[in-house]
């Protein structure tokens, strides 16, 4: 170069390079970012972390002037769905207000990306309709009259009632009912500290079906698919757009697809997920398990399953011993039997059941057969949550993984507990010593979670009553089936003495509360969490960002209310304070669980709680923090998340280390027991407790081909193709993965019957939690009924026409949306819409219609108890401090269809089976979209019909207990409490650990 003056010849490139190297080393030693990185040219550019204290941007609103704004960037965690994606709050350094939220690039799960619900947090924070002060009802319950009270008044009344209930041994009268916890076990430990079995989750209207299927297989109740590395991704329903761990999984599914992975989607609707599929299978709802069994049969018959994996890891020996004692106990014999077990599940049979052409099923099966150990599969709600026997959907789905050996392999599906890290907390209260039959009734000994949605019926039957009932960011009146029964129960002060709604916003349940206590949104509270989103373990931290910032600026904040809007609090401090007031002098043994360790006798602060946890229970964090000159807590306050481990791999194949092998004994099933103590793990992720052997040795693993390996946390130590638990507890017909006819099976529908799918979400909303976000409301605010054109022609309706949808207990009126995106004979309506407020009540005016509640007091002549909602007014613009509220252009907010669903508890998993057998008719004269009518007498009758399906522990328990001890259970009581009352012994609690088992996440 240089001849035409274009180059500067003989520049010393070597010296330049060396200088760069030296600068880079210096800068990285300081923890600074040296190269902005090639990612800087994509949309994935983030402010470098060393500039988070003072980040300068131009103010978009000032354009064309160049006005600089200075921000402090403070991480927190989204509180909308359960994915717990990282957020970065952009706090204006001048006003100390949060101006917006973006993704946190330091978060290993979400990696800086968010769905619409993350940035919409800023709407929730500034929502003109949010609740800012503690409120107490002034009139009758549900009348809509409220007065502002101070926190002390509320805390004192609550403490006094709870203390009395505990002291009077009325412990079952205190109940905490939670929607998505968004935290890992804090509040469960509060319940345990109080000595009550009062935890009640929403899980049985959500994921218990799928959990049961996974739990019976591998002892762990959730899947953790490694989508990014899969060759075939098999999803049940619209997981790519709205599933559990939606955003963290969706980005990895897309990575997998970019690598060339094939996507197989089972979804009766043409969802956005289905549109991305290589194989879209739109089955008759409830036939999914038949399809999976046909695929399994194909894999077995064509010899394309992983024989070696099956031989090593299935409990086939136990199966042969129990079911074929006459046969030789050899793998060869098992293979022979396996070859015939599913022979009736041909593609022709599956096609007949599912309505999907045989060739399509065969083609998808061929794709799956090509996955090898890179088959990632996932089912969380949808079919498993929709159908009677839905738990067999996830069980037969996992059968495919178990056949292919795609279990905890790269690109396969992991048990979640290995990809999750729950740090041991500062205090671990002991287990409650009694059993709450309002949540764990004897009829459902195998239910994965509390029979929460049956509570109104149990109260009505007189099985118990509640003195203090907390609903926490939970809205059972709206979310659960049979909402009118909930209203009726909540209105009865004999059944519910005091209802306390802990919620940031108004919801349909809070209207029937005595106290409404405002809790913070995602940037206004502390929590930790860890979720299985890839093969790794991370801990995320949610924090009140203004508190974190003020502390960074050198101020001291003692109580989160000091920085939150109004008197909005956070739960951690609330529960600590309430517990101290319940047990002010420590005589009840409660207070010790909420005391400082540094200064015994003093109240535990959130700083000490999390400071201790991050210092003592998160391996690697103290060292990483120290390298940056920070304490572990300061590190988490600065970055919001920490990756503990990556590439955990197949834990079941790990050899049990020498230090745990003391006095080993192997039993006839190959289970290995040791006299050695269990090493204490800082990770207290929920795992089933394994019974010791007769001499009290601890189970450490299983023997496989002469090696002592970790195995699975199941009774057999292996993957349980055959479940002895189901046999022993009265369900021998379901010992193996099989297909159960749904309650909406075509044969049960009757002439003119249709299936209503009500379980799907709108990707931009999350139940009622996100309803106070104006951006999200503008995008999605209604839920018309998906109707196939063929059905629409038969009904004589077009898009927008009103329809009457009749369920077994009533009907609702909804507008039609005629679309080919749904199977003929099936209709669908998202449950996300149909929000309402009673006339005269405050509420979220952008998304709640104003309604009148109509009911007949008592039972009228015909044995009917009619209840209804009638629409008074849709949504309209309103003046507020936010000028956007005058720009509301929508009026229709859909219909609250769940009110017309009766309860459908699956007799095994306890899951509410959401799909509805309905009749759809054109609306009658006078029918208004949005109106709802139900006969509660009918709802009671249907409850009893489903109760008839159960097999009570009283009749089937093999050992006089209420429930198999190894099954996971939130707030596990002592072993003694497991005894059915008739056989209850006293003072014996074998095998009891010292902490509760962890959370039930949605």
């Amino acid at each position: 170069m240089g001849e035409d003056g274009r180059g500067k010849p003989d520049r010393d490139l070597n010296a330049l390079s060396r200088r760069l190297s030296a600068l880079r080393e210096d800068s990285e030693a300081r923890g600074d970012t040296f190269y902005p990185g090639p990612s800087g040219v994509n949309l994935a550019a983030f402010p470098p972390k060393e500039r988070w204290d003072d980040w300068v941007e131009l103010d978009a609103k000032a354009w064309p002037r160049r006005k600089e704004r200075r921000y402090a960037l403070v991480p927190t965690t989204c509180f909308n769905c359960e994915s717990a994606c990282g957020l970065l709050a952009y706090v204006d350094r001048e006003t100390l207000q949060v101006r917006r939220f973006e993704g946190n690039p330091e978060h290993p799960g979400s990696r800086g990306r968010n769905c619409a619900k993350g940035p919409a947090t800023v709407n929730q924070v500034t929502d003109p309709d949010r609740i800012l002060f503690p409120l107490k009802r002034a009139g009758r319950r549900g009348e809509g009259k409220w007065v502002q009270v101070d926190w002390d008044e509320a805390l004192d009344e609550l403490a006094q009632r709870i203390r009395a209930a505990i002291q009077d041994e009325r412990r079952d009268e205190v109940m905490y009912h939670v929607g998505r916890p968004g935290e890992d076990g804090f509040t469960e430990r509060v319940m345990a500290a109080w000595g009550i079995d009062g935890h009640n989750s929403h899980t049985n209207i959500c994921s218990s079906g799928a959990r049961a299927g996974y739990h019976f297989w591998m002892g762990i109740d959730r899947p953790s698919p490694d989508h990014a590395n899969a060759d075939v991704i098999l999803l049940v329903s619209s997981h790519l757009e709205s599933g559990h761990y939606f955003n963290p999984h969706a980005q990895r599914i897309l990575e997998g697809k970019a690598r060339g992975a094939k996507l197989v989607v089972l979804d009766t609707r043409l969802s956005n997920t289905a549109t991305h599929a290589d194989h879209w299978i739109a089955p008759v709802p409830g036939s999914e398990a038949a399809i999976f069994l046909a695929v399994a049969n194909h894999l077995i018959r064509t010899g394309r399953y992983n024989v070696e994996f099956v031989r090593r890891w299935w409990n086939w020996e136990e199966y042969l011993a129990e079911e074929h004692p006459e046969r030789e106990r050899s793998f060869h014999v098992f293979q022979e039997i396996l070859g015939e077990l599913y022979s009736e599940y041909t593609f022709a049979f599956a096609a007949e059941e599912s309505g999907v052409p045989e060739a399509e099923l065969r083609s998808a099966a061929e794709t799956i057969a090509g996955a090898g150990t890179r088959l990632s599969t996932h089912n969380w709600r949808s079919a498993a949550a929709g159908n009677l026997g839905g738990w067999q959907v996830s069980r037969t789905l996992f059968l495919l993984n178990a056949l292919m050996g795609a279990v905890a392999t790269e690109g396969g599906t992991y048990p979640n507990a290995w990809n999750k890290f729950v740090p041991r907390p500062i205090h671990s209260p002991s287990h409650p010593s009694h059993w709450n039959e309002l949540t764990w009734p004897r009829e459902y000994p195998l239910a994965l979670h509390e029979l929460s949605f049956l509570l109104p019926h149990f109260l009505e039957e007189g099985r118990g009553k509640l003195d203090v009932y907390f609903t926490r960011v939970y809205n059972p009146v709206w979310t659960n089936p049979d909402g009118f029964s909930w209203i009726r129960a909540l209105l009865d002060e004999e059944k519910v003495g005091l209802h306390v709604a802990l919620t940031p916003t108004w919801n349909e349940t809070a209207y029937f509360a005595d106290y409404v206590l405002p809790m913070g949104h995602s940037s206004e509270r502390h929590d930790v969490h860890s979720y299985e989103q890839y093969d790794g373990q991370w801990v995320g931290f949610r924090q009140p960002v203004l508190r974190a910032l003020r502390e960074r600026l050198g101020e001291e904040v003692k109580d989160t209310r000091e920085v939150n809007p109004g008197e909005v609090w956070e739960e951690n401090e609330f529960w600590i304070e309430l517990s101290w007031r319940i047990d002010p002098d420590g005589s009840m043994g409660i207070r010790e669980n909420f005391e400082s360790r540094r200064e015994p006798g003093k109240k535990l602060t959130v700083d000490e709680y999390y400071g201790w946890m991050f210092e003592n229970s998160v391996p690697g964090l103290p060292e990483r923090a120290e390298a940056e000159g920070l304490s572990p807590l300061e590190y988490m306050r600065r970055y919001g998340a920490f990756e503990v481990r990556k590439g955990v791999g197949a834990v079941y194949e790990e050899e049990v280390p020498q230090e745990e092998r003391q006095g080993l004994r192997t039993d006839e099933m190959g289970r290995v027991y040791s006299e050695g103590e269990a090493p204490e793990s800082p990770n207290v992720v929920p795992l089933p407790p394994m019974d010791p052997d007769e001499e009290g040795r601890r189970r450490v693993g299983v023997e496989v081909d002469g090696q002592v390996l970790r195995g699975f946390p199941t009774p057999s130590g292996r993957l349980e193709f055959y479940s002895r638990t189901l046999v022993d507890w009265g369900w021998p017909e379901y010992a193996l993965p099989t297909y159960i006819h749904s309650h909406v099976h075509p044969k049960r529908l009757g002439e003119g019957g249709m299936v209503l799918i009500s379980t799907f979400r709108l990707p931009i909303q999350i139940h009622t939690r996100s309803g106070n976000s104006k951006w999200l409301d503008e995008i999605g605010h209604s839920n018309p009924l998906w109707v196939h054109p063929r059905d629409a022609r038969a009904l004589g309706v077009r898009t927008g026409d009103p329809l009457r949808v009749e369920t077994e207990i009533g009907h609702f009126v909804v507008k039609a949306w005629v679309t080919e995106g749904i199977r003929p004979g099936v209709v669908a309506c998202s449950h996300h819409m149909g929000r309402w407020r009673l006339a005269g009540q405050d509420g979220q005016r952008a998304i709640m219609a104003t309604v009148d509640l109509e009911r007949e007091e008592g039972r009228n002549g015909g044995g009917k108890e009619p209840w209804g909602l009638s629409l008074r007014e849709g949504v309209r613009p309103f003046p507020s401090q936010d000028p956007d509220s005058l720009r509301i252009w929508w009026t229709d907010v859909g219909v609250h269809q769940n009110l017309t669903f009766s309860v459908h508890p699956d007799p095994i998993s306890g899951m509410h089976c959401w799909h509805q057998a309905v009749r759809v008719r054109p609306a009658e004269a006078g029918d208004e979209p949005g109106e709802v009518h139900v006969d509660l007498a009918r709802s009671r009758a249907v409850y009893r019909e489903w109760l008839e399906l159960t097999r009570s522990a009283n009749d089937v328990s093999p050992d006089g207990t209420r429930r198999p001890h190894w099954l996971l259970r939130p707030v596990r009581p002592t072993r003694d409490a497991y005894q059915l009352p008739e056989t209850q012994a006293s003072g014996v609690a074998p095998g009891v650990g010292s902490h509760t088992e962890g959370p039930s996440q949605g």
Partner: protein
Amino acid sequence: MRSGERSELWRALAALVGPPSRERRRLAEALELGSPPGPEEYTEVFLLQLPPFASVYLGAEGMLGGEARDRVAGFWRAVGRRPPAEPDHLGLLLALYASLLDEGEGAESTGAGTDRPLDPAHPKGSEAGGTAVERRLARHARKTLFYEHLACWLPPYLLSIQEVAEPFYHRWAELLMEVLVREGEELGGNGELAVHLAEAPELEEDPPRVEPSDMSSGSGKVGSTKAEAGGGHPKATDLASQVLTPVRSGLILTRADLVRGARGRELPLRIGERRFALRQMLAAEPFATLEWLEEEARRWIRLHQSWALVARGAGGFWQARAHRAEEVIRELRAS
């Protein structure tokens, strides 16, 4: 200089293909390029004048994406990386080159976000060391990347930057050119023409008539009568898109070049994208416009002579294309 050290230089040059920031300012100073200008200049150079994407300069349509980008994406896959969303972005290609230098050396990885999942140039497991075979493969991959996807378009691109940009990016392009020359010397040349070039269609001698709608705003509402009435040259109009496709014509004509050409000859310049503007110029003043284009072709013949050191085959190719463009334009002018 070990290639491991050299990679630092590549990585820093890569990082500067991005909007100015504090980190980039520090890098620029370390490279003795002076302080980067404001974001306007970056936008002017890389967004408005010379988009830093290989496909624009190597693709048969002269646009982003297409087969050229697919070919580059294929290279990412061939070296075991997941292609990023924009696989042919110059910054990414230079960073990829840097990491192949590291791998070929077996040196410890040098920064550039080795631990960053978002950095597509650094897939899992590629960070450090590797066996002798892996190192050899990396060296082979590096040579392929250099000749197949960098040296076959970067020199004329960098020369264009030097024409268009203010001092900072001018100096950046100069330095990168020097680094390319040095690399070309070390690699010792490649006998074969890059596939992008070997497959590139030529400038058509007798381009088809342009659809009438193409004559105007593209709305399709202006009829052919207007085009004829305006005295538009039927062949020349279609010539516009071909001349503006670098790999066909051998010319890189930026917006700035069009403005310069129009001003110098008092041609009417309408606001719009380059193809539209050139068509309008050709329609209004076909003779003068062709004359200017011919001059541009000659300018590029000279420019291409200056970079033969980097990759002889590619230099010859671009020169031949510019020669041919000159001929075609001259014939059109004569007709």
